[in-house]
Structures are given as C-alpha cells and as structure tokens.
C-alpha cells in the first residue's frame, strides 16, 4: 500500500508510463474470487505470460511445512504452494519488503509460523524457493528490502525490470537493488553536524546525533533514506528516532531499538568500514572541538543556540 503514494500523478499513471500492466493485485484490482483465480489458472496453463511475480509479506511455511498459516482464499491451497507454482513461470520474482525478502517480523523470536523470505531466511540463502532458484530471465529473487520500503524503491525496481535495465550486477550481496542499497541511511542525514562532533541526543526528541545513545544504526544500514524524501520530506532520523536497519536481514531480532548497545562505553555497532581505534580517537578529538552551539542544541528539542559569527568559538 506504500506504493500508492508514489508519483505526482499517482501510482497507476507511473505504471502506465513504463508499460506495466497489473495482471492482478489484491488491493486494487477489480477481479475478485473466481475472476482472479481464472487469471492464475491461465498463467499456470501457459495461456498468459507472467513477466513479474511480486510478493509482499513473509512466506509462512508452517505448520509442519504445510503452509496452512496462509491459505490463498477460495483456492484450498496455501500461498506457499501457489508461490512454488508461479515463481518458475515468472520472468522476474520480486520480494517487496523485508518480510518477503528475509522473513521479517513474523520470523522473529520463536518464529511461530515458520516464516521465511522468498530466497533468504535472515542472512541465510535458501528460503522458500531455495538458493538455486532463478527466475526465467536468470535473476535471483530481487529483494526490495525495507520495512516498509520506500515507494520509489518499489516503482524504480519495477520500471528498471520492465525496461530490461536491471541485471544481476545491479544487485548487492543480499540481492537488493544497488541504486538504493549502495548508500548508507546515514548519507544526507540532517543531523550530520552533530554526528561530526559526536554531539549526541540523550533523550528522544532532542536534536543531536542518535548514534551514541539512542540506537541509531544509520551508519551501518543500507538505504538512500536521507537522500530522498519520505512522505514529502521526512525520514526516520528526521522524525526524531533511530534508524533500526529495516533494510537488513534480521532487523526483527534486535532488542531495545532506541538504545545503543555499548561495550565499555563505546557503541558496539560502529560505522561499517571504519577501524574501531580510529573511530574512538576521532570521536574523542571531535568531542573536544565541539562548538558551544552544537553542544547546546544537541540536547535541546528546538534550536537554543543559533549560528552566529562568533557563536561557536570556545573560550580557552
């Protein structure tokens, strides 16, 4: 349903622009019940081509491998069973969201329904379709991971596939499209100046960096979240709360999302590719160089020290 927000003229117009014809969508298609199953039957019997199969939600394999926890209504068959029938017939198979990609929240804890992603469970290759699965055009399942994914990630992936413009080399190590997954959620964060000086927020709604105390994983999580607008101009960190790495497999197994796990006072999760000793040294240095303005604003919920010509100068 996030996709409905896409585009200046609406999602349906965007689909038309790229020549995408929705054969059936559970939320928006007119066809219901028998009209819908007739479409599925046509695909299975080869009367109708299936260019893309898009799945939202985890594949529920339980109980005992039957898929009974998610039956496709009106068909007497599990969604697991339908996916296994339809996926090999599709030019491309796309997992929309971290549930369909990696299992997501239903796979958390005891995983009561034996939930899985289409081709991954957490970081493990396999999932419902198996590690060797390739769709008819030779691609693994394309994982538009995110909870929920940005409408643009969904639409741009679909558009690129429709134009034949997305190859295996355009996918990252977890088969996420690189156009958004080669960025870190941290890139473009409006709290950047606070990050540079390690001027940290100590409580929710404060303006400082969320990494040191409030659980932010944006320096470790993939996504161009702070480079494109969510709902006209937001993002998680813009909204005042931590990035919880929802594009990453296994994000659902985190604990205390809005608290930073620390060892000896140092956050356990440091920027992905930065040597720990350097990070600690630079953090100490930048903390000692923090302008008064930045330090004051970091623990306030609105700006208390505006920029001024000498406002940032520290007294010796």
């Amino acid at each position, binding site marked *: *349903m*996030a996709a*409905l*927000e*896409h*585009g*200046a*003229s*609406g999602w*349906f*117009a965007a689909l038309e622009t790229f020549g995408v014809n929705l054969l059936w*969508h*559970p*939320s*928006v*298609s*007119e*066809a*219901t*019940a028998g*009209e*819908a*199953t007739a479409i599925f039957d046509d695909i299975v019997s080869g009367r109708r081509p299936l260019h893309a199969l898009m799945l939202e939600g*985890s594949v*529920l394999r339980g*109980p005992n491998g039957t898929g*009974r*926890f*998610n*039956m*496709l*209504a*009106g*068909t007497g068959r599990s969604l697991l069973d339908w996916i296994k029938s339809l996926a090999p017939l599709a030019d491309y198979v796309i997992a929309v969201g971290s549930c369909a990609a990696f299992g*997501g*929240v*239903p796979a*958390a*804890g*005891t995983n009561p*329904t034996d939930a899985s992603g289409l081709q991954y469970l957490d970081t493990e290759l396999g999932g419902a379709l198996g590690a060797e699965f390739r769709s008819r055009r030779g691609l693994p399942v394309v994982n538009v991971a995110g909870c*929920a994914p940005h409408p643009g990630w969904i639409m741009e992936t679909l558009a690129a596939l429709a134009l034949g413009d997305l190859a295996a080399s355009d996918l990252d190590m977890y088969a996420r499209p690189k156009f958004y997954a080669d960025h870190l959620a941290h890139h473009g964060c409006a709290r950047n100046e606070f990050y540079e000086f390690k001027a940290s927020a100590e409580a*929710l*709604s404060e303006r400082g960096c969320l990494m040191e105390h409030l659980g932010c994983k944006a320096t470790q999580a993939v996504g161009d979240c702070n480079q494109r607008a*969510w*709902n*006209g*101009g*937001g993002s*998680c960190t813009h*909204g*005042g*709360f931590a990035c919880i790495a929802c594009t990453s497999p296994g994000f659902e197994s985190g*604990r*205390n*999302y*809005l608290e930073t796990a620390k060892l000896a006072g140092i956050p356990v999760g440091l920027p992905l590719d930065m040597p720990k000793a350097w990070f600690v040294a630079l953090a100490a240095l930048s903390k000692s160089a923090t302008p008064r303005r930045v330090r004051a604003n970091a623990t306030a*919920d*609105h*700006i208390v020290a505006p920029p001024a010509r000498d406002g940032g100068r520290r007294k010796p």
Partner: protein
Amino acid sequence: MRRITVGPFNRVEGDLEVKLDIDNGAVASAQVTAPLYRGFEQILEGRPALDALTLAPRICGICSVSQSMAAAAALRAVEGLAPAENGTLAANTAHAAENVADHLTHFYIFFMPDFARDFYRERSWYVPIAERFTAMRGACVAEVLPARARLLEIMGILAGKWPHSLAFQPGGTTRAIDLGERMRLLAIIADFRTFLERVVFDDTLDAVLALDSAEALDRWRDGRSGDFIRFLALADDLALDSIGRGSAPLMSYGAYHGDAAPLFAAGVLDVTTMMRETLHIGTIAEDVSHAWMQSGPGAPALSETRPDPEKPDGYSWSKAPRLAGRPVEVGALARQAIDGHPLIIDLLRRSGANVKTRVVARLIETARLADAMESWVKAFRLREPFCHRPTRRAEGAGVGLVEAARGSLGHWIELSGDRIRRYQIIAPTTWNFSPRDAGGVPGPLEQALVGTPVGAEGAASVAVQHVVRSFDPCMVCTAH
C-alpha cells in the same frame, strides 16, 4: 441449499474468504474466514517492553499509526505516565491523517470500483460511473492518489515517514515542530480541505458539517455533483440501505484522546432501541470455539494466543471477541452514532446499520477530521516540549484503547521485569468479521450477509461485494 466459497476476496486489506449457504437466491447463512495467521502476540512475548513500539505497528501497512498509538497507550497505562500536551496533539493529527487517508482509500480504491462492474452495464448511470470509478483506470484516481499522497506529507513532518514510525512514544512524539513546519502542516491540511470541497462534496466543509438530518442531506445534495453525491444517487437506485443490515450494538472506545474528553465519545449504542449504554471494558472476552486457537481464559488481560490448526470446529484464525457476551459492530458509523452526530443518528433511526449508512458515516467523519486536524496543529505550543522523558516502572498491566479507521483497537499488555509477559490485541475487524462463538452466534458480518440477494450470480454476486466491503475490513490486523 447450496454452498459457495468467495475468495480471494480482494480490494480489502489482507486475506479474506467467505463461505455462503444460498437458499432461494439469497444468503441463508455465512461463514467468514481469516486465512492468515502470523503470530505477532507470540513474537512479542519475552521482548523488552518498548520493543512493542517497533513490532506492533508492523502488523499492518495501513493501520500502522493506530497500532503505534494503542501500543504507546498501553505502555503509558503501565507507567502511569502523561504525555506532553504537544505530543498528544501531534499524535492525534498524524493518527487522523492516517484514518482519513484510509477512508479515502476505502471509498475510491476498494469500494466504488464495484459499481463500474459489467454487471451494472444496463443501468442509466453506468457510463459516467464507470468512467469515474473503474478500478485503476477511472478518472477519479488521478485526483485521489495525489491528494492522498499530499495528505500523508503530514507524516513526513510529524512522524518521519509512513507507514511504521517510532515517533509515537509513551511520553509524546519525537519531533518538536517549529513555526515553518506548522505553516507547512496547515498548508497540507488546507489542500486536503480543498480536495474534499471540490471533489468529494462539491460544497464547503462548513455546509457539509451543518447537515443534521436525512431531509437536510436530501435538500443539500440536489443539483450537486461531488463523488459523495454520486454515491448517494447509487445508494438510492440500488437500495443500498436495504442490504448489509446489522443488528449488533455499535461500540466505540472514543477517539482522539487528550487531557479533556475525546473528540468522538466512547460508548455503546443499541441500534434497535437507539439507547446509549456505558462501555464496560472489563466485559470484553474472546471466544475461540470456532477459531483455530487453543482454549484458555477469555479475558484479553489473562489470555494467550496459541494456534491449534487441527481444531475440528475451527474455521478462522480470528478469535470471536464479545462485549458482555454480545458481538458488536465497530467503525466510523459506530463512532459517529455514539458521538451523537445528528445526521448519522437520523439515518440510523430510518434504516439502521447498512451499506449506505456505513459509507456516509465514513465521509462525514472525514470532513470532521479535516477540521479537527487544523485546530490541533494551531494549538501546538511551539516553545514547549513534544515529548516527556519517561520514568520507567516496567512492572504491571495496562490497556491501550484507540479508534483505528476501521473501529476499536485494543492492546492489553503485561510487563514483568521490563519484559513483555503477555500481549493481546483485539483489532477492529476481529470484532466485525469474528467467527461464531460457543453459543453459535455469528459475528457482525456473518449476520449482515444473511438475506443478501445473490440472484444467478452466486459467488460473483455484486451485492455480496458491497456488503463485505462496506465494513472496510483490515484482515491483516484481524488475526495478526
């Protein structure tokens, strides 16, 4: 008598199957199945208390803020914490934005496309209605989807993003709003008002909000051409007030709480006598005699959710919630009726709960909320906090009761050592689409479907489609 199965029942949120026994061309009895169970309550058990704020909203992509609000309210009840006043206003604004976005989605994307079906080709109104409302291709979508996206820009400012935001906390909301942002919020709400006035109502919201009786509505609609008016004409021609009739009491937990009374009052209303009753939360219990669930205590503060897929009498993953032993109908109709809106009360007196009154109540509520959002944003005190720093108690039990677009949503939580010992959720559609209980009493939709004419169409009956969709079910929330 013959039995037919309708599914996949789409243009609802989530998975739905309906079984109908047909006798003499009409539904004699119905069985409603939620065919998806993901186990959110089981997943929440044992987690740190505040993880509920991350996990519970992810039950649903369109009721996400409602789930956040209920989780935050339940945690707040445990902690005995009052949120910052600004936080309450900001959360109410975001919650209202989600709820009216859902009302619009329901009307334009889920409900109206059924009138563009080929089945109605011979009707005099068919051509213009099909041009406007055909699924995905009708002219309305080019107006509605951009208006909906613009409205949801409220989330970008107040909540970071939608769906699934952690902005909604026991202490308030996480983003303090500045003056420029207040102006942007007011501009978005003004655009939404313009959309409603130009496209939906073809008149000012003030005029719509002044409608106080069925007669006033009939006088007002004469000569107008908004989509609400188009619906009213269809409702007349197809007698939509004669199908989907519900006799269950209406219930509302009260919506948009603050320091004072909620914007829409809480209570129970018997639609046969039109008598108001006080809502007693302690009389809520869930029956699992026809759910694929293990038996246990019925009270949500004491029960656990454990699936039993082989249960002989089971036919749904949904439990059957009952208020003092009775099924109740929830949603915009219940909220507006219990709040005493004169137009909705008059329509209920005349024709009861039915397809028409459910849709009218949703659109009237949308108009009321456009007004309320504006007043909440204007009431922010920009120099004061939006979020209090909570002192955690981390022990005890609490209930969070809110109104989602589709009706009453409750989270019952019990904490022990700052971990979740028990978490129970009763969602709006758990009430509306509940299966039968131990006494064999059907749920509200199961009752409302009885008598629906299906003619020769059987499973393809368009009347069945109207009745089911008039409730605006959210099936992913139902069994969660």
